[in-house]
């Protein structure tokens, strides 16, 4: 290496002394390159980068929007389902209550009807019994009077008198019946 440096020095080719024309060419070349880079290369790359970033971010935003819409729809459907269930429950409850009401009404009506029928029957029986008693009383009286007249031979044509007799007889009979029942 020493030899190299010595030989270089002796021949006057100092490597640290620049060639001004080379410097000029390098400077001009670099200036041209800088111009092209500043004017075209960097803006084009940056534009592409920006567009790409925007496309990716736009895609993400779109996906997020779709997600939000989907969850909103889901929420709505759930709400509707809950509403429908509540409605069904309400209707069922109403129907049950209505059924119970109808049943109670019917029962009451039936009870009233049966009571009415029973009362009617009682009344009919009572009146018929009354009629029977009245007719029996008349007929038994007549029969007994006739019979007694025939047996006694005494005229018992006098109605008022015979009626009194019959009544007395019947009262005695009833008293006897009552005493026997006691």
């Amino acid at each position, binding site marked *: 290496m020493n030899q190299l440096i010595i030989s270089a020095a002796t021949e006057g080719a100092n490597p640290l002394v620049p060639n001004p*024309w*080379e*410097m000029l060419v390098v400077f001009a070349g670099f200036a041209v390159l800088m111009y092209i880079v500043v004017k075209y290369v960097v803006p084009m790359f940056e534009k592409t980068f920006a567009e790409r970033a925007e496309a990716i971010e736009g895609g993400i935003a779109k996906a997020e929007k779709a997600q939000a819409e989907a969850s909103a729809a889901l929420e709505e459907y759930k709400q509707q389902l809950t509403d429908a269930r509540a409605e069904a429950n309400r209707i069922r409850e109403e129907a049950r209550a209505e059924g119970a009401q109808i049943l109670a009404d019917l029962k009451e009506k039936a009870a009233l009807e049966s009571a009415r029928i029973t009362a009617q029957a009682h009344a009919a029986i009572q009146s018929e019994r009354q009629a029977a008693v009245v007719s029996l009383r008349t007929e038994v009286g007549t029969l007994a009077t006739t019979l007694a007249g025939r047996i006694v031979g005494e005229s018992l044509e006098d109605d008022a008198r015979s009626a009194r007799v019959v009544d007395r007889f019947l009262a005695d009979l009833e008293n006897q019946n009552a005493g026997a029942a006691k």
Partner: protein
Amino acid sequence: MIALALPAQDSGTFTPPGIEEIHLPAILPWGAADGFSKQMLLVILSVVIIAAFFLMAARKGQLVPGRLQFAGEAAYGFVRNGIGKDIIGGKDFMKYVPLLFSLFFFILVNNIYGAIPVIQLPTFSHVGGAYVMAGIVYVTWIAIGVKKNGLRYFKLATVPSGVPGYILPIVIPIEIISNFLVRPVTHSLRLFATMLAGHLIVMIAGSGIEYLVTQENLFLKGTSVLVLGGAIAMYMLEALIMVLQAYVFTLLTAIYIEGALHADSH
């Protein structure tokens, strides 16, 4: 290098190629200096290559990129996010991405030239280009610092906060030298020296192989295989350094810009 040096001393006829040999004769004679050289042609070619590739890759701007667009976006994103966003950060790093992007790919392509057979000339092995690149960065970060902080920037950049007063007379000159004088020199020479050294090593290995193969002695002829193996290993290392230096240069630029932007918090 030892393998190369030994035969030279033994025979005394091997003359290694010197620095001057990397300056090829001009393609077109010019009035001044060396005329239009291969180096200048390569610089212009690199601008065409980079511009064409990225314009084609960026032109379509599809949301789902094709293969070319994907490659372009990956390369652009590497500088934009890996260097610009990570180092400068904040909201205004985008302002400096074009500079960082241009620097990285301009230096990268010009370095890679050194690894391509036939072309085989890393443009920045000629120091002029490295001076220009470092100079552009130097002016840029000072301008950013002044624009952001006003003239107070020079105080912020040279007087570190939290240092006791009695050390300041030592610290301030050191800061001035390291920030404003040494920084652009190291920035340019780092790139230039690595490229020149790599170029020289490959060139010396090449001429060494040529010399050894033409020897009468069969043993010396055989040792050329060793040199070839070493040269291939050095070539691989050089290819790595070419990429690395482009990255380092751009990374340092981002660090300088960040320092100028946030001078008051350093």
